[in-house]
């Protein structure tokens, strides 16, 4: 988009005749419509294949201290540009998008590329401002002990639009939660009253109940329960063996781990 603006300026300098002005107007409309098309892929929810979410810490003694987010570093610009490329966002206006944290910093999210996705400020009715409301609510709930930080992290990483309905209330504009289909980057939309949200909601898919472990033996935020080599599953809270367990597989719920044939510690 920036390069488009520069083209406009260059053309404007050289437009000396009415004919050229007409041509310039035509080109402006043409370029404008191509930019609109390029930005008509706003991912409302992240593509879990590219960005499953990633936790930096779940320690409320660290996260809930005022000013915590200022102690976490900023994402390098080159990494942000990579996220835009992965989501096929090739043109954007200043202030149109932010590279957002799926699990926000105030909920202990990390700066790994696994936790980043481009989010529009301008898409309607769902956008970065709406997600911000959820982030603040979950932070308040987790830091006041009404839910665990892990619950907050898992909720926002699984599907923030669903979490919004659960923890905040109805989505703005009459929108329904957006269902993400892995690998369908740029094809997701909410239904709602706005003309820009007219694309039908995709069929509902259930959240995966298991996930592969991370390379370091930890589990992703969407499936925090670790299964050890011995086939025992360990919960992230109240289980002294959790931290030292090198996960062989990960599950979202104890029930899913049991259904897969694993048992709780005795």
């Amino acid at each position, binding site marked *: 988009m920036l390069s488009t603006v520069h083209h406009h300026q260059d053309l404007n300098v050289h437009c000396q005749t009415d004919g050229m002005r007409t041509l310039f107007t035509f080109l402006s409309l043409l370029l404008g419509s191509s930019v609109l098309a390029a930005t008509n892929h706003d991912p409302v929810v992240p*593509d879990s294949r*590219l960005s499953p979410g990633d936790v930096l*810490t779940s320690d409320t003694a660290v996260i809930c201290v005022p000013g915590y987010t200022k102690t*976490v570093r900023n994402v390098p*610009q*080159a990494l942000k540009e990579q996220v835009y490329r992965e989501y096929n966002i090739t043109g954007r206006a200043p202030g149109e998008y932010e590279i957002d944290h799926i699990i926000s910093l105030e909920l202990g999210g990390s700066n790994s590329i696994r936790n980043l996705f481009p989010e529009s400020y301008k898409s309607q009715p769902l956008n970065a401002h709406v997600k911000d409301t959820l982030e603040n609510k979950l932070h308040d709930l987790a830091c006041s002990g009404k839910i665990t930080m892990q619950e907050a992290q898992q909720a926002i990483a699984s599907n923030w639009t669903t979490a919004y309905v659960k923890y905040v209330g109805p989505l703005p504009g009459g929108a329904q939660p957006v269902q993400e289909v892995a690998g369908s980057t740029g094809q997701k939309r909410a239904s709602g009253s706005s003309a820009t949200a007219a694309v039908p909601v995709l069929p509902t898919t259930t959240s995966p109940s298991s996930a592969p472990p991370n390379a*370091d033996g930890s589990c992703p935020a969407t499936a925090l329960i670790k299964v050890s080599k011995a086939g025992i599953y360990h919960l992230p809270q109240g289980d002294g063996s959790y931290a030292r367990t090198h996960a062989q597989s990960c599950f979202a719920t104890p029930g899913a781990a049991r259904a897969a044939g694993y048992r709780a510690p005795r």
Partner: protein
Amino acid sequence: MNLTVITTDGSTAAPSAQDQTLMQKAQRLIEADPHFQALKSPVLSRAEVNAGVAATAPGYLYLRYDVPGAVPQELWAHWGKADHVAWKSGQVTVQQG
């Protein structure tokens, strides 16, 4: 610590020898930094190459150190002209060659 490469389609791949060298050299630079030395028991817990980022650009190699009871430290290493640790931004430049 296993070094993982995150490819542009979100899958993972094996790191190159160059990437391994970058990680090792970056670790040495970080561990020599006085800010790092002031941390209590930091442990390297994550090392990821962002394959879509140029190896000479900030953000190429993501490194995370867990610090018990404190904020984990996230840093990014890349190849450059001279060794340098910018602690505030977390950028670590490792001299090429």
